[in-house]
């Protein structure tokens, strides 16, 4: 027996962890989990809420650089194609449908940028350094016209932006990327693989996400009801994409409905009789949780059923009382320019999260990790009719959540809950006719009372593709080469959450290559 084998077995015993990972599971996380479960004694409640934008949000039309040099290349490149996606300059009044825009000379329609008016200016509290290739004395910025609620949160100091972030193995320059001399994550530009890179980093090889890895560390502190440590509200009527984020070595994603009753109770188990057979419900309960099958598939199915049955009564009771029962309903999404109104899946999921936050005390939970999603950011075509309403849903959803958290049973929870965005990748700078294609670096948002908001962290890049003599040191072809690593972003969030530097080094083995290891937005 090697020394490592000995340690592993000892820790498994000490932690009481189930040895379900087999020989393939990395033992390092189990080491970390056992070490911290005893040392960490959170004194107050904290939660991390990941808002995952499935499909790859176009960051270039989300956070914009509006200084003349940057804007010139942005507008020239994106005011092209048969359905141009270039947004209008700051201060441009909306053009009513049917009228001609003085900016573009085109007729405005409700799904064209002319109809929405100018981008919304924001001013970071720390002036952004001017990157090589950008000819400006001051860099100025703006948000997409559908994001007014986030402009407001930014101005109030509870929303920060992290610029040009992406999955990386080591710091890398454009030249290194083009020469292939520095390793990059496998299958850049592939949805599935980059979802894995964002959600799991190097852990994805062992099917662990970094949210789950952080949940592993707090299971002990959460005590008897630790099943509620890592929660994903269902995104509506469809399964999500890859949701690796909440998978830990021991921690499991616990799924809830977005309705007022979070757990779907198995009726036939709760019934007094099954088709008039008085013993039927008991028989049913036994055979749907049986782990004595000869099939691994069956034995792997059973624990989900068991969690479903055991947790349902607890969680449904916990949210039916006290402040959790008073969480205001998520408002509909209203298109800010047409008034068109539909349900807001972001707000609906955040409403479900808010109920869990409010119920955490009664369940004895001190740390939670949540994962909510919004699909359809893969705007290859007709981006004008897709992305704006999605960004609007994000903005209105976050503003709703900020408001709800400000008063849960008379307590301001905004400082205890940090919400942040992730997405598969950024998108191409140039247009393909009416949309954009898969890219790499992009911009992310962090919201909360603990966030040092009103600022942009990381280097906002030079914009523009290599064209007509212009050479951009930050873009390889059409794609931003990231200057901030997902590992740094996650480590900043993790540090706030209470994860030690040693554990961060275990969860993010490549963090050592990036300086600083945390970004300062918390």
């Amino acid at each position: 027996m090697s020394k490592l084998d000995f340690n592993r077995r000892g820790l498994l015993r000490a932690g009481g962890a189930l040895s379900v990972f087999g020989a393939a599971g990395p033992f390092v996380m189990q080491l970390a989990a056992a070490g911290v479960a005893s040392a960490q004694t959170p004194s107050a409640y904290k939660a991390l809420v990941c808002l995952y934008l499935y499909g790859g949000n176009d960051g270039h039309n989300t956070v914009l650089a509006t200084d003349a040099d940057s804007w010139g290349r942005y507008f020239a490149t994106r005011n092209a194609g048969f359905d141009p996606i270039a947004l209008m300059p700051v201060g441009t009044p909306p053009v009513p449908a049917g009228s001609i825009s003085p900016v573009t000379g085109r007729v405005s329609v409700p799904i064209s940028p002319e109809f929405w008016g100018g981008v919304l200016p924001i001013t970071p509290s720390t002036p952004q350094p001017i990157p090589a290739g950008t000819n400006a004395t001051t860099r100025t910025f703006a948000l997409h016209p559908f994001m007014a609620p986030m402009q407001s949160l930014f101005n109030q100091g509870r929303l920060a932006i992290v610029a040009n972030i992406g999955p990386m193995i080591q710091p890398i320059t454009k030249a290194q990327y083009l020469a292939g001399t520095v390793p990059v994550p496998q299958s850049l530009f592939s949805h599935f693989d980059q979802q894995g890179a964002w959600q799991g980093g190097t852990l994805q090889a062992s099917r662990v996400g970094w949210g789950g890895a952080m949940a592993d560390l707090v299971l002990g502190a959460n005590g008897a009801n630790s099943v509620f440590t890592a929660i994903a509200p269902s995104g509506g009527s469809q399964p999500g994409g890859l949701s690796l984020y909440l998978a830990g070595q021991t921690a499991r994603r616990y799924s809830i409905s977005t309705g007022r009753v979070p757990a779907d109770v198995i009726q036939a188990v709760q019934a007094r009789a099954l088709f008039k057979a008085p013993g039927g419900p008991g028989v049913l309960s036994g055979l749907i949780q049986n782990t004595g099958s000869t099939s691994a598939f069956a034995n792997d199915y059973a624990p989900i059923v068991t969690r479903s049955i055991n947790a349902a009564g607890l969680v449904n009771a916990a949210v039916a009382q006290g402040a959790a029962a008073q969480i205001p309903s998520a408002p509909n999404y209203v298109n800010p320019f047409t008034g068109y109104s539909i349900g807001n899946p972001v707000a609906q999921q955040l409403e479900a999260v808010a109920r869990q936050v409010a119920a955490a005390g009664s369940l004895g939970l001190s740390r939670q990790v949540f994962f909510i999603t919004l699909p359809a950011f893969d705007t290859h075509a007709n981006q004008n009719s897709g992305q704006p309403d999605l960004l609007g849903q994000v903005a209105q959803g976050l503003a709703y959540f900020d408001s709800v958290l400000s008063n849960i049973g008379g307590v301001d929870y905004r400082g205890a809950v940090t919400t942040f965005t992730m997405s598969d990748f950024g998108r191409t700078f140039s247009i393909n006719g009416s949309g954009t294609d898969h890219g790499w670096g992009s911009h992310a948002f962090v919201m909360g009372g603990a966030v040092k908001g009103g600022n942009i962290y990381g280097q906002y890049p030079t914009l523009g593709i290599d064209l007509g003599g212009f050479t951009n040191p930050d873009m390889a072809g059409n794609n931003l080469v990231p200057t901030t690593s997902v590992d740094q972003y996650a480590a900043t969030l993790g540090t706030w959450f209470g994860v030690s530097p040693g554990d961060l080094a275990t969860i993010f083995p490549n963090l050592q290559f990036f300086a600083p290891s945390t970004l300062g937005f918390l």
Partner: protein
Amino acid sequence: MSNDTRERLAPTGLATLATAAAVGGAAVKTFGGKPSAHATVASSVSASGAARFLTQASFGPNDLSIADVQSAGFAGWIAAQQALPLSGSHLDFVLQRTAAIKAQTPPGAVRPREFYESFWVQTVTGADQLRQRVKLALSEIFVISVTNGTVASYVDGTASYYDMLGQNAFGNYRTLIEQVTLHPMMGIYLSHLANVPANAATGQHPDENYAREILQLMSIGLYELNLDGSAKTDGGKPVPTYTHADIAGLAAVFTGFSWYSDNPIATGGTQTFFPPQKRGLSHEAKGPIKPMLAYPIYHQTTAKSFLGVTIPASASPDPQGDLKIALDTIFNHANVGPFIGKQLIQRLVTSNPSPDYVTRVATAFNDNGQGVRGDLGAVVKAVLLDPEARDDTVGVSQTFGKIREPVIRLANWARAFKASSNSGNWIIPTTSSPTSLYQTVLTAPSVFNFWTPGYSPPGTIINGLNLVAPEYQTLDEVSVAGYLNTMFSVLTSGFGSPPAGSTILDVQANYVAEIALAGNAVDLVARVNLLLMYGQMPAWLQTTIVNAVNAIALPNVSPPSALLTTALTQRVQTAIYLTFASLEYLVQR
């Protein structure tokens, strides 16, 4: 149309079409072992062997199909199935529903749910069961989804896409990939409809969406494969099949295709090239159901390089010629056989086929025995007749098999228990909610399907064994409860919505054959075991369910009354529900 009449269209000796009760009764007497074959059966296939085969090759066995397989043998049944004409047209169905709906409410229009109805009609009642099952499998590889609002707005197009998959189920992959590529619903879903060439002045580039996903998901995958489906490695790392440059080159091929028109117009105010939602133009009615047309002036003419092939720059655009080179190149890539073959095995038989199994199926793809590459009929046959698929001793294997897809579970019920639709339209709306089945045909959340072929659930035994369980990707605390509640409701009151003017759900089973056996719990459970678990229900589970059934006392009344029928029905409901609920059923082995 009833299940029975459609089934009888199958080319089977009528002699084997004994009455349902007789077949069931004769086949299920053995308790704790495999049921014996029906006495009149000529082939050596047992009833349980036939049922297990039909669990893989159809939407579930019933008395008639078990008899068919026993009569014809496995290969004979496949040959007969592959020779059957299509059992119906989804497009015709939704067009007729459109006409009926408009007649009732003039501005009315069909919605995706009318396509779902058509799915259930053919899935449950179609005599061409093998084609139906392969069609669903193909729809999870060549994915379009009505979660895309534009696709959803063309129910006729959606129906025609599903028809197209069925038409090609036993055809050649080369034809299938071309028809997939040119179908306007795929053109909308992966946005190569109205894709335009690069513009060097602005840096505008062709849409790369379809170019990427046709390679990653529909033909060759991310990594070079050996014939057995394993990835080729170089220095321990898998070897990528393509780079971003290949995607960019291939994207240029997929430019200049758009809506079909009898009179295509490329430019000007009446042009038919660009999508109508942007230009306010309406394409003609046939647009959503006819292959996209080439509009040469929108086709890129620069050199296009991909997968080791270069189409040189040309003075005049040749979209069809370039497309042929691209699809031939993809089709002839050595990965296609193992990549597509393994996924068909995963959809029909088992999540983790052995390398030898994949090799045999990929070999059939590469050459059907007559020198033809890409014969999907031969591939399907190889998948189902493989010794690994036909080994009935895997009932105790730890790793063989797969979690049954939720919609197939519901279809199992409808077929096994002779469900019929009162309206004839199988009014089953979406089952996509996690509190329902968490799956509806053609509603995957993305082109990556409901689940991906390589999904290995975190923290499971399967994961520890380095194996995959794709269908596990939609299992969670809500959806496992949703399934159990849905089936409880199905057994209690049927399924679907009530037709107008009725309060009874549209789809109702006929449990007459089961009720006839319900006086004897052992006989009843044996029949359910055959129909739902191909006679391989573990003995402990049989005992458990028999005891649960026997707990429902039969009233000692003479003559038999409604009271007795009620009790017998409750016994049947108990046996069937507990079987559907059991984890042993949920794993198809």
